[in-house]
């Protein structure tokens, strides 16, 4: 059986898919057995969502729509979890907030 799943999600993070979010993103992707790929357009090119080198090299700025696809065991949960991470702004909104604003 080969499960497949796909989704897309917009990056809202201020500086896009930068170092810290990319570390979180690839770490999460690696927790799934499925092959997970990302692309910046529906036509690809697709690259390995578990590779920080590839994910960073995409240099996705804020507002980019990330296309995700996965195949194999747990494909559906992998895509759902990664979409949720991006939607939660990589869990960084609070830290990002504190030092942005002065009086």
């Amino acid at each position, binding site marked *: 059986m080969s499960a497949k799943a796909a989704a897309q999600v917009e990056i*809202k993070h201020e*500086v*896009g898919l*930068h*170092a*810290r979010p*990319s*570390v979180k993103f*690839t*770490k999460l992707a690696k927790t799934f057995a499925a092959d997970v790929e990302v692309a910046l357009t529906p036509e690809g090119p697709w690259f*390995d969502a578990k*590779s*920080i*080198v*590839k994910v*960073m*090299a995409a*240099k996705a*700025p804020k507002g980019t729509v990330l296309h995700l696809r996965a195949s194999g065991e747990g494909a559906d949960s992998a895509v759902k979890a990664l979409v949720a991470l991006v939607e*939660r*702004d990589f869990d960084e*909104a*609070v*830290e*990002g*907030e*504190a*030092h*942005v*604003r*002065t*009086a």
Partner: protein
Amino acid sequence: MSGPLRLTGTPASGGYAEGPVFRLESDVASYRPKGSAEGEAAALRTAMEAASEQLAVLAAASAGEAADMLEFQLAMLADVSLSGPAFDAISMGAPADKAWSDALAEQIEGYEAADDEYFRARAADLRDIRQQVLDALTSAGDRTAPPGAILFGEDIAPTRFLATDWSAGGGIALSKGSSASHVAMLARSRGVPMVVGLGSAVKDIGGMALLDAEQGAIVLQPTDGDIESFRKSSTAYGERRRRAEDSVMRPATTGNGVPVHVLVNVADPSDVDRIDIANCDGVGLMRTEFLFGKGLPDEKTQYLAYRTVLEWAAGKPVTIRTIDAGGDKPVPGFTVEESNPFLGLRGIRLSLARPEVFRVQIRALLRAAVHGNLKVMFPMIAVPEEYARAAALFAEEASNLAGAGVPHAMPPLGLMVEVPSVAIAPELFCDAAFFSIGSNDLTQYLMAAARDNTAVAALNSVTNPAVLRLIASVAAFGWLHDIPVSLCGDAGGDPAAIPCLLEAGLRDLSVAPAQLALVKAAIAGVAV
């Protein structure tokens, strides 16, 4: 080389260091080829493991931004996509050092070519990773600086800084480098003296040196006279710092004995764990944006956060600013997308446009008010109607709480003076219990220079005569009409701006907690 030699540069982290020069460049040791592709691949693998181990040790001992950077470097180094091309080249006959260097060069070029400044800056991380593995290949990384040494080179990698033991003193002197670099930031937070931009006129450097990171200079081959005057300056610097640390305990007064209230700005309730309330006169600005980081917070969450800070302040005043979202701080589900957000729906404008959100915060504030000396202020007020509407919402919610029998209290309601209209015509706002000058926004709106745009940073100066004159007129108006006026922008923590602010008539400054000592020392140096 004979006689003393003085090189001048730019201070990146203040202080003085006297010690032997340790050349960073001689780290570039030569690599001995291993003779076979298998040998080369094994050497690279071992070097990468050694570099990873060192990074992991540093990461375990670091926190905050340094830890993030190290974790990123570790993840990159562990990714086979990074080293793959190097191992391919080795199988084609390349030596490990060249294969690794070339593979990383390709990545570094990719980042250097990025449009986005943030991604361009990652090239430095990749260069750092490259150097760590090369050091491990040549065992150059094993060369540790003697205690108290002055590290001299073109630039220094953040990991090198973190791996150095600074407990015996020492400093950093760079022919290039930047005071905005990651290392400079680390050096300032650890108190390690650092000078950048010394130029590359002198290559052959060794022996004893004197690093003056207050003026930005290094003296090589110093004479006895040089050493004597250096030690005098160094001692004086140490005394100034000690005095600043001592003076933090005492209430601030100017050189001629005029008392000045120094309060702290708080961005998050956990900030107060690191501050001794005895060292300050209260909280002049508690931001509430942190509560809205992950969407809209409920009343209980807000109430507990406000109560924590009020109880910590033990009766000293705590001024909480109602949510100041918008501008450069979007809040999901609250702020709106705008083409010119600094001039758009932000601060009180947004709160009044979304009263159902604002009322939750108001109830939390009214309930928290019974736990301390609370004051509340509104950000971005431009016209009196905004203040009146916000105050009316407070009154409404207070009577609702009274009807429900919930304990609460009405705090004094003030406003931020940051939109120039308020500063120019303060007489329209006499209903306000107090004014708090938000110097960052007041300056950016007066000078028409966005404070998040480095290209116009020079215009954004609080010491511009127009800005100071406006601040002075607000202070004079407040004095005449018994309306307390304070200031809570970055200018309050800037020793260069403090004399001007005190001359403008201000006697209440709210500053970042880390600047308390410096600010009190600067106040003591002013006579008004």
